[in-house]
């Protein structure tokens, strides 16, 4: 693993997200009400909605365009909808948010 410091936890609003640019496209880094962080693709598989702008509830996010709901843990669409988003390892250490760049690079290579 290649953990990269992308910024302070405080930079992400609680129950919100910020976007990190990668060569493969944007990744949304979410912070939940319980201060857990999750990184997922910022592109809804339905019609490309920016998931980082969705409402965060529990460990899930609702897409702002047509309200599909995704689990941030598994990346799977919830309920009747069918689809998934890629998830990336992310963690918080001493108030800093770390992302696993090797995974992003691997995906970039694939």
């Amino acid at each position, binding site marked *: 693993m290649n953990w990269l410091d992308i910024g302070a936890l405080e930079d992400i609003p609680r129950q919100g997200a910020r976007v990190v640019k990668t060569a493969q496209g944007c990744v949304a880094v979410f912070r939940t009400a319980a201060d857990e962080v999750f990184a997922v693709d910022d592109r809804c598989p339905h019609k490309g909605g*920016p998931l980082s702008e969705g409402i965060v*509830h529990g460990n899930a996010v609702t897409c702002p365009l047509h309200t599909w709901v995704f689990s941030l843990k598994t990346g799977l669409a919830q309920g009747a909808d069918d689809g998934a988003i890629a998830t990336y390892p992310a963690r918080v250490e001493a108030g800093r948010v770390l992302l696993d760049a090797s995974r992003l690079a691997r995906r970039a290579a694939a």
Partner: protein
Amino acid sequence: MTEKLVIIGAGMASGRVIEHLIEADPAAYDITLFNAEARGNYNRIMLSPVLSGEKIYADIVTHDADWYAANGVTTRFGAHVTKIDRGRKVVVSGGVDTPYDRLIIATGSAPFIIPVSGKDLPGVVTYRDLDDTNKMIAAAKPGAKAVVIGGGLLGLEAAAGLQLRGMDVTVIHIMGHLMERQLDPAAGYLLQRTLEARGIRVHCKGATKAILGDGRVEAVALEDGTIYGADLVVMAVGIRPEVRLANDAHLEVGRGITVGDQMQTSDPSIYAVGECIEHNKQLFGLVAPLYDQAKVLAKGLIGEDSAFRPVQTATKLKVTGCDLFSAGDFADAPGREDIVFRDPGRGIYKRLVLEGDKLVGAVMYGDTADGNWFFGLIKDATNVTPMRDTLIFGPAFQGGAQADPMAAVAALPPSAEICGCNGVCKGRIVEAIGGGAVTLDLVKAQTKASGSCGSCTGLVEQVLAVTLGDSFQRATSQPMCKCTDHTHEDVRRFIKAGAMKSIPAVMQELAWKTVGGCASCRPALNYYLLADWPLGYTDDRQSRFVNERNHANIQKDGTYSVVPRMWGGVTTPAELRAIADAADKYAVPMVKVTGGQRIDLLGVRKQDLPAIWADLNAAGMVSGHAYSKGLRTVKTCVGTEFCRFGTQDSTGLGIKLEKLLWGSWAPAKVKLGVSGCPRNCAEATCKDVGIVCVDSGYEISVAGAAGMDVKETELLCKVASEAEVMEVVAAFIQLYRENARYLHRIYKWVAKVGLDWCQEQVADPVVRRALYDRFMVSQSVYQTDPWAEHARPSARASWGVMADLALEAAE
């Protein structure tokens, strides 16, 4: 010729008589209905939830103007009948005679007023009708002091309601324990403890000596020397039958108007029904027997035989959180035995009174689920000896059945009474369900079960569930979302009544089923909280939909549209230049004139939003909230300024209104139009609020629609000056903000609460001013330009990406 039936009093009893009569033979009589109150029939027993704020008047109306019209009932509301002239067979009201062939007196009761000095001071009220209730609501300023004289059913419901509205409440009761007619001392004590725990002071054995005050009530003095300060005194010490008309007409009157088994008085063409009567020396104070009387009387009027036989009644207190039930006779007497169950930890007390092998009385506090079962045993005089050992544990324990929540209902025999008010037994409900009444509403419509005080609603639903099995869904009360079983309306009431001030508090108190809610309930809760507590609640940005969080409208490709305000649709060359410059500078793909008389910049990238806002702000423009559940546009026409037909300055008024209202969040978007004359070039008559100027002033109409539904507005009122327009419109929008459910446009909300109700609210100068003042308090917080706040240089960083790993990831 059809016989003339005149009815004095549109109360709970006469309402039922008319219903039964019309159901049996709509053409039998030509009915005229008088009522001293300026309104028709409503569910009087639900005044307490209105007082506490858990319901509004519109929720408890049982017969509205349309109903009377559709059924050919001539109504004389607000008309006090002052005389019955039996010789000429007429009743007199306002000096006008109305002839009758048959007459029904249904005047109910009058509250008893203790004859102490100060009883007539302003601020002393009784508790009988909507006017009393409104007086109390108006007096209920948080922190103000209320003294309720009387610790019976009415007094305690008043006390609880006033306390929920934030008053400091003291109950003075003359007896040793509360509700002594329905409760034994132990249950009375538990009730007192519950009330005290919520902050209501209870003074038992207190005799009122005088009400003190100079020009207005200030305090209540008791015989024992105690003095309680009071801004409001509610006298709820009992009622006496309203018999004055009958006395004057020399009908036979005891304590009430004397009637026989067919409800006839001593004059064969005059009947009496309801609380004003006396039957076999007995008076009545609960609705169940009145409904039986109404049935008997209606049958008699169409020539069918039947006789009134009073049945036992049971009592419940409609105070949320105080669960008590009492039925039958529980006085100590020789030959009687008690079975008592106490669980002090859970505050549960149950007492059954047995005489021989029969149950004669039951009192319960804390857990009343089995009340109706015990009540059934009392009424049927069932021999309870075989189940005496387990009797107190209720029906679920009879015959070794499991204690599952439905078992109690499943175990009830068909004859068990479910709805006490309307005397509806389980068998009748099951029969109705069998006939297709598969929802609560249908059961209510066909059997009247749960139609009055509503305390049996849960039981009726359980009967539905037991009878229909899995196919029953509690469809009538559509919950807000899957996170809760409560409806939007209930949640709004709970937030107000329980003074809940944060989303986590609401979710905790109302037992939300999910962690953190969902994208549907969170924006609604955030709105309800900020609308109800503009000063105490902080807007939760993360609970807002993307457009309201980013103050621009998201497009299908993730870019945004930006619409600055253009007050009343009027712009200047300087503003147009600034818009053109911004469009150039940020390479805006499309500039479009909107349907709302302003200009839309479409396709702006998120990271450019703060900068484009800053540029527009610099030219004097603020957010047009084209994305918000709040005030959008005020469309105007040119009016007297330029148009040869204009009657008033519609452009100027539109701008003033937009400047008054902008920034206020609402349940859904709000659009206004102001036209200078009835040619209506601003299309005001299809807006949420539309103003049409005329020579004599301004016609304010509301509840129009021109989106998915198209509907013309309806007249709210007509006023003479611009200042009045501003006050009425702000008050009306505040009424909407405080009462509607989230996402309901004004026309949907008005259809629910009724235009009449809205008119009443804004017509009353005190209510209107209070609404206006509350609107302005909210504006003191929310009328700020969100663009300016987010365009601050310090806030800008958060609009861009958090990190750029594009290079690293590619390496």
